[in-house]
């Protein structure tokens, strides 16, 4: 079985099958680039991902392994089909996988999925963040995401006026 060594930002190395790695658009590109530039066709590619630490990279690879037989989603699926597509394909395993994670880990996972071009993982993690917005008030959202209002003067009032249809309803 052809393998690839994927190294995290903190130096941990993960040896994974190339078949699995190629389910990540980024890793697939890197493997193909390596093949083109390498004289030795048997050489094992080594890919260093300096933006992703080991804990997160392990989670991504774990997710990829669980979904290794899923059809690969097109990158522009949401553009074609509109809102709400992230719900598709979310299994009980996915929910159990995400359940113990705090928001910080989820955001890192989003960045990692985006960087490694893993569409399915990006969808379910975005969906999780979205669920922390749905049905909440503005203050609750700010608290959940540790954000502060930076509106000045009457800007917030202006926004509130724009939103008045929703508020009235």
């Amino acid at each position, binding site marked *: 079985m052809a393998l690839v060594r994927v190294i995290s930002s903190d130096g941990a190395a993960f040896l994974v099958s190339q078949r699995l790695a190629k389910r990540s658009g980024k890793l697939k590109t890197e493997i193909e680039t390596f093949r083109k530039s390498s004289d030795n066709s048997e050489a094992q590619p080594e890919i260093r991902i300096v933006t992703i630490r080991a804990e997160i990279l392990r989670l991504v690879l774990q997710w990829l392994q669980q979904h290794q037989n899923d059809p690969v989603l097109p990158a522009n699926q949401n553009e074609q089909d509109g809102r709400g597509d992230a719900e598709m394909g979310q299994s009980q395993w996915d929910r159990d996988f995400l359940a113990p994670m705090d928001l910080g880990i989820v955001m890192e996972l989003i960045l990692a999925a985006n*960087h490694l071009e893993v569409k399915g993982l990006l969808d379910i993690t975005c969906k999780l963040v979205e669920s922390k*917005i749905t049905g909440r008030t503005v203050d609750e959202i700010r608290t959940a995401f540790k954000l502060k209002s930076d509106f000045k003067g009457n800007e917030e009032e202006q926004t509130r006026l724009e939103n008045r249809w929703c508020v009235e*309803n």
Partner: protein
Amino acid sequence: MTDHVKLPAVDTISVNDVLPNEILEQVIHNLTTEADICATKSVCKRWKLIVDTMVGHKVLATNFYPMVHILKKEMPQKAKLPSNLKDITSLNENYHLAIRELTIGVDELLMDESMTATIKCLISTCVNDPNITPSFPFPHVLKRLSCFEPLPPDLFNTLTPLSTLSYLNISLFALSSMKSNSFSGLRRLRCLTTLIISNTSAYPDFNCCSVTNQLCNLLTELNAPNLIHLNVSYPVKDLLNVKDDCTTALMSFIKRHLTILTLVVGMCSPNQDIKGPTKEFRYPQSLLDLMGDLGKSISLRSVTVKDNHLHSLRPSLQVKGWTAFMKQQNRLNSLQFLLKSSVELNQDVSAILSKNRNTLKNLSLSCFPCELNEENDIFFVPVDCRLLSDCLVLQNLRATDRLLNTMYLPNTLKSIHVDAMLTNEDSTGIILAKTGVLETIEFRDTRGGTPKGFGYGITVESLKEFVKMHSSNEDKSQSDKNIGRKVKRLIILAGCTDGKFPPEGIYNQDSIQPVQLRKRKAPSTFTQELIGDLSVLEVNQILNYPRIDWELNEKGFYEDKLASSVTSIMEHHSYEWLQDAESVMSFRE
């Protein structure tokens, strides 16, 4: 093979520190209600900017607003709404209801059949001055656009760039105000996957020639290289006038868009009655050949052809052309016909089914007779199941009227939806006997229009036969051996025609394989209250009737699953349906 972007330390990060705009856009884009989107917009400047310029709002222009507002206020919080009202209230929850000019980015704009002035106000601050270009902020955010009202002629030319528009629905009525140069803004819609030219429900008094011309202009100008779904209703001026520009323009459009997988073609009539010479015209062979050639050049997965002439009972000649087109398809997954019956139609359908025998899974056949015959109480033409004998993978069948020769039903069927079933040689039991994997049978009686066109539904006798067939009776003949299997769901939309469903249920008297249809307590009596409210709100075209949905439970009993769910029909059917609904409701515990 390295990257150069450093991630901040985990314990210090916040969403705004970490997530780039395109990720935040994706998160917010998944929100389905305007209330949630507005809440995100009020969080901070960056989120507001993303909502306004990248996500956009869903905006509805409608004159439904007063009714929606009252409905929201008056309805009990936990009451179940009928689906038609749910749609209206969900519009209220999911859309900005706009009454003034837009200053925000719009993700989805639904211009309902409302006051023209409102719509003009939305897209232009100075509607009375033709020299001022309508304003529409952030058109690059707009993804879904639906227009059902005459539009300002310059609308599409000012809505540029429509670089993310994926869904466009324009009614024929909306086209009536357009001009020949109105569509240049639609020349390159890279993201457009769905185009719908919809029929106008109310048949307002518009100029048919003008609409035809504008539709042709639209089809000529619009270019969407990634189009997948095309749904076009087009007016046919004269049934016997085969030289119609719309069909030609549509053919040319399809030829330029071979990415289309789903095609719906509907021929509709303008307001006036169709008149023409009585002698028969033949469809020109040259046009048939052209349609056939076009059919060869494209491989569709789903086709629907509808002949919606309200004012004529004769089939449109254009149907001949489209059947010639469809005869060239050989990978269809779904096929739907809503046509006037003719002698040739059966041959054409048979030929199409035969060519798609290895792929066709969904089939819906609704054929009107060319002449009403009230004496014989016929409004739709029964479907002869011999047509289906070739289909190897057919799973779902829908028919408007009775099925004839049910012994030819394919045994691959999983669901049958039939609008009428009588106790006769084509009874439920025979359907069950001839089908191996059937899971759902749905009887819906949505027919109307003739004095005797009501009340088919299903009789209690048919239900008894249905239950009886689920029996382990050892006397069964070899051919009946597979009758003992159980259908998972039996749905009856109109209740029993004779309204005599036994209060104790229907039992097959089989101790080994007991099967029973029984009713359960209706969770709510809201239906009656709702009808009262509706009359106050003057939307009395809508009426509701109960649906009986028996589902097989683990013990082998069919239980009424959705006793309180309701659906809607038009008012002119109301009297008969109301009686039926009451009779069914009264039998509930």
